[in-house]
């Protein structure tokens, strides 16, 4: 009776065990690791792609993928900077940033559904389009220097906790609510499980799929706000390569790339795990080049584990 239980635990909570294990090792290897400042650092850095990973979880649960998130972050970021520079206050800028991200996400979803093109291709194209638009708008120069109020989003604190961490937590909780308690959430799993059945059950699957790409764009917009505020600058190259960390967080968190199976808490831990590994390798003085190698191995390893589960 004992061995199946262990297998059950490993299957469902292996990621938690791996997370704890890595934390223990790092705390032994580095005295700095477990300090309050370092932990807050980790979570704050995790927030930016962690929020996008929440949106990506929806997409991957439907069996899709969104490669454009990094570029959507950049285009939302410069939209934000543009608004601020044009003299609008933080609040209108805030709204526009999120709307821009959502809009591009919805466009992804619309093309995927209307054209019946695989999400990989559409979002790969959008990755280039959004990046190009960003560069056209900024002519390649960063837009920087915003007032104190706006900079609080990325650098401020609320009841002693950095604002990005609060936004990240709220996003995770909202996503959990949506996935477990709403129609949209259940359809997300259902579409990933079997889109044909969903359609034959009288549900407008394309509509919900489009919404879900909109959610992914929305989370890219939120991350853009935080990043732009924190750097006090909107860069044309912002978010380049982020899709790697974002997708990795979701996959490491146990969401199946073929769709229909996964949970938001897994993504949350997956994102933290990547944050911890990045941070740990920095603390241990491992070069950035080697860090890339390690991250790649972890992604492939996570998918391999997922395959072995079936």
């Amino acid at each position, binding site marked *: 009776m004992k061995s199946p239980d262990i297998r059950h635990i490993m299957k469902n909570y292996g990621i938690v065990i791996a997370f704890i294990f890595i934390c223990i090792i790092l705390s032994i290897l580095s005295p700095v690791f477990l300090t309050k400042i370092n932990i807050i650092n980790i979570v704050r850095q995790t927030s930016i792609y962690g929020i996008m990973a929440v949106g990506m979880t929806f997409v991957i649960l439907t069996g899709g993928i969104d490669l454009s998130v990094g570029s959507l972050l950049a285009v939302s970021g410069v939209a934000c900077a543009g608004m601020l520079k044009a003299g609008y206050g933080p609040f209108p800028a805030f709204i526009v940033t999120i709307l821009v991200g959502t809009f591009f996400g919805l466009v992804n979803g619309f093309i995927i559904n209307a054209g019946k093109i695989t999400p990989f291709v559409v979002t790969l194209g959008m990755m280039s389009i959004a990046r190009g638009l960003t560069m056209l708008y900024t002519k390649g120069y960063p837009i920087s220097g915003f007032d104190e109020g706006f900079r609080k989003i990325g650098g401020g604190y609320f009841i002693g906790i950095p604002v990005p961490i609060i936004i990240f937590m709220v996003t995770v909780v909202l996503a959990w609510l949506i996935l477990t*308690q*709403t*129609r*949209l959430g*259940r*359809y997300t*799993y*259902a579409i990933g*499980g*079997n889109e*044909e*059945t*969903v*359609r*034959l*059950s*009288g*549900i*407008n699957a394309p509509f919900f799929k489009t919404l879900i790409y909109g959610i992914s764009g929305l989370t890219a917009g939120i991350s853009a706000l935080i990043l732009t505020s924190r750097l006090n600058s909107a860069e044309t190259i912002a978010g380049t390569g982020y899709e790697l960390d974002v997708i990795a967080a979701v996959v490491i968190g146990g969401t199946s790339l073929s769709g*229909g*199976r996964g949970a938001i808490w897994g993504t949350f831990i997956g994102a933290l795990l990547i944050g911890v590994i990045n941070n740990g390798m920095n603390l241990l003085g491992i070069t950035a080049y080697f860090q890339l190698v390690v991250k790649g191995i972890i992604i492939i390893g996570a998918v391999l584990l997922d395959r072995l589960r079936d």
Partner: protein
Amino acid sequence: MSTLLQMNGISKSFPGVRALSNVNFDLQKGEVHALVGENGAGKSTLMKILSGMYQADEGEIELNGEILRKTGLRDMLKAGISVIYQELNLISHLTIAENIFLGREPRHKSGLIDWKTMYAHVEELMASFKIDLNPRAKVYTISPAFQQVVEIVKALSLNSEILVMDEPTAPLTGNEVDRLFDIIANLKSQGVSIIYISHRLEELQHVADRVTVLRDGQCITTKPLSELSTNEIIHHMVGRHLTEQYPHADITLGEELLRVENLTKKGLCRDVNFSVKSGEIVGFTGLVGAGRTEIMELIYGHRKKDSGKIIFRGEEINMRTPRDAVQKGIGLIPEERKKQGLILGLSVFDNAAITVLERFSRFGFLQRKVITKKVKDMIRDIDIKTPSTNQLTQNLSGGNQQKVVLSKWFIRDCNLYIFDEPTRGIDVGAKVEIYKLMQSLAGEGAGIIMVSSELTEIMNMSDRIEVVFDGRIVKEFTKDETDEEEVMEYSLGLREKDVPA
């Protein structure tokens, strides 16, 4: 003639179904042996065992007097047995010769492909069987008929002595059929033996030497064709079945629910007319591929019709998507339970509730308590055997899976239920339960369309029977005015002339 192949006492079971029991089958050298039977009689299973795709539970296969020890796919291919499947397995953008030699291309010493030898081989092979095709043509440029010939040549190139042809004439036109028969005659004369599966009984006279009839997984008879009339074959195919398993109910019919007028879709069906009354069970029968499922998909909005009217509850409606049909109160229990009816990786709850999430949610948030109660009541009412509502549907038995599909429509209270092969692959006990459920739905005033290949089921459950052949309704019967043999004759297209123009 000498016995080339002998299959002795072959039995095979699948969960809940005994597909073959103690079947004997033999093949002489250079003969064409026809294998016939109703859909689900076990023909495909027997051939899948012969091709090595399935392994028999019991029994043995003898080839040239020697019992085969290994019966995997590769072993059977090596032993000289090739199957030409209904769905052709060719790669359309490669040439005929490339397809024939796929995976075993002749090569030069350098490792590069020896194109000259390859084409020469294929030309030689075709010449010897008087087949006129250019080996350099890309497969997509030739018609399905010739693609089938390519499959045959491919089998011959593997030195196959036994060819299994599964409904080879199904996609062919009259001329092409004659050509195929010429090729078969040629193959015979060169000592190739053929197992010929077909629903078209009339064509057996042109090709077959002997006939074996399968029914319900059993071998009913094997005789030379000359000793069997078409009527006798049909009689053997249909047989006498038990009828006790069909519950009886007296239901008064209400007013007309659905009327379909001249429904037409190019290549699928034409001029389909029928109606369904409240409380009525209308059975659709015909061969696989006759267009029954397609007609249902047109009504359900899963396909778009070219022309014709669908009148539902007195109003003409245009179903553009299944959503339109569902909103009007139509539910489809699809043919492919696992691919179209269920989301296997999700729970009983998620599957059963999927059609009512919209109805029971407020501002997008689900009223979980209400839905859970509905699902639990449904599980109890129709007796779905599951440890909990959280059980994944992939872990349920076929019968219980089917009940989950039913529950998602029952929970919505539809006006019209379309059952497509509702009892396929489920055990007898669950079948009876599903029949009872259908009748209680009818008793409550719903209309029911039941598409089925099982004749006894059609005969015993339907108030009215529509026989579909070649995309048309060729005959309508009311209950008790016909028998299985007559229905089968219409299904096979043997009585087509009776159809009013």
